[in-house]
């Protein structure tokens, strides 16, 4: 199923003002409904390799498994996640495996890793998966919300009451992630599901955006340019660079245009109560 005309996907990735190269990788695919942002880390150019592998693996894995996943039509699969959520999670686990193996076999890639945040849209719903401190934000009915919780030292300390969220913004202990792909043989992936409502705007981004731009300014930019996602994406990247651009900055924006409900049988619709 193609989501062309039903979803609007826009993505921009920039190396910023300070870094010599861009170690972020992004992708958007209207055929599968998958969008990904990955922020690579590692010596020399290994970060680029890690985030590149993550994005490629996810796209390959999802493209291969998506038709099968859609056949399940909402019946609970393992872990009580939808088949699409499991597909997304397994794709990330596969990426972890490949990055980890590659890091072990290539000396210049030793210790490389990447964060990842990915959304798979289907049937007026979205599966959300992430590892690390790349984020998903959502605007819904005028409210701006960070949907994912960072896997970072700072977030752990906020949760334990050492910092308030405001103090965390000022801390120098930023950018220390507690989870990433490629570092260990296995990784814990956070997965969520939600409905997609008309008027929603989704923003996936690397920390190069939210470290340089305050949430309030991100929200204002999205609100102002909500009719033109392309401009909104460019503005966000520009803001990050204007504020210093100390890291690579990547943004992917998603906006539903029309309902993208999967076809359901006549009797399913009529007799459904709990599903």
């Amino acid at each position: 199923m193609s989501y062309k005309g039903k979803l609007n996907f826009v993505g921009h990735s920039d190396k910023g003002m300070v870094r010599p190269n861009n170690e972020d990788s992004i992708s958007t695919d209207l055929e599968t409904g998958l969008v990904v942002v990955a922020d690579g880390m590692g010596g020399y150019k290994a970060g680029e390799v890690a985030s590149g592998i993550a994005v490629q693996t996810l796209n390959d894995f999802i493209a291969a498994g998506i038709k099968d996943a859609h056949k399940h039509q909402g019946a609970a699969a393992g872990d009580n996640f939808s088949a699409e959520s499991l597909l997304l999670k397994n794709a990330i686990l596969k990426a972890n495996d490949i990055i980890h193996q590659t890091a072990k076999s290539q000396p210049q890639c030793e210790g490389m890793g990447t964060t990842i945040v990915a959304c798979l849209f289907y049937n007026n719903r979205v599966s959300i998966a992430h590892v690390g401190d790349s984020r998903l934000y959502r605007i819904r009915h005028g409210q701006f919300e960070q949907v994912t919780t960072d896997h970072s030292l700072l977030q752990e300390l906020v949760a334990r009451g050492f910092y308030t969220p405001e103090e965390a913004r000022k801390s120098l202990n930023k950018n220390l992630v507690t989870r990433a792909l490629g570092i260990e043989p296995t990784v814990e992936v956070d997965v969520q599901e939600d409905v997609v409502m008309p008027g929603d705007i989704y923003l996936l981004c690397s920390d190069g955006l939210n470290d340089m731009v305050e949430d309030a300014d991100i929200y204002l930019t999205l609100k102002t340019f909500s009719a033109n996602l392309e401009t909104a994406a460019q503005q966000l990247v520009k803001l990050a660079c204007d504020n210093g651009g100390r890291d690579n900055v990547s943004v992917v924006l998603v906006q539903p245009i029309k309902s993208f409900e999967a076809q359901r049988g006549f009797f399913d619709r009529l007799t459904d109560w709990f599903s």
Partner: protein
Amino acid sequence: MGKLILTLDGQELAQYELEKERYTIGRLADNDIHIDNMAVSGHHALIINILKDSFLEDLNSTNGTYVNGKLVKKHALQEADVITIGRHALKYVSGKAAAAPGGDADDFEKTMIIRPGTKSQTGVPSMDSVNKAISGAGGAPIDESKAAGLPRAKLQVLSGGFAGKELELNKALTTLGRPGVQVAAVTRRADGFFVVHVESGQGHGFPTVNGKEIGAQAQKLADNDVIELAGVKMGFYEMK
């Protein structure tokens, strides 16, 4: 690294470099920072150093711990904060001014992974020292290998033909209701269950929780909340 300058009535008494993970402050001699004064409790407060930041925690002292005149329990120390314990003052100097933007700025923004065990790369701090500091303050150590359990809950139909029927909310996303009449969805997140209104057919009003209409935003469900959807009442019950 940071340091504390101890003064009494404006007179500087001592300076303490904050090198290790924790420093105790109090009247008894076994404290790292020993303040011999009746207004100070035996073990009055604690300074915890986690990587580049320092935190102050009051240890249930009799007279309290103040930062810049405000009573605090736990506080992330900022440059030039003045901690008042009894009549003594401790000024916090962060030493961060030394980290000038320029050469340091490059590494400043680099994302690095922090893992249990010893330092894995130059400049990457060890999780052990972080956990030592945290548990010194009574917190649970950071252990990423332990997955947090997901919350559990169920719905029970309270009215109509299906009364008594139960549904465990064991999916990440559960849809309820009749398309064209009223549909709501319940999402399971790490911090609980949230109900969101999806659609209402013509003339069918909005779903309610405890009699109040669900607004446009997802609403967190609390134990024993009563949801009314498409004319059917359901109770939401947390499960341990």
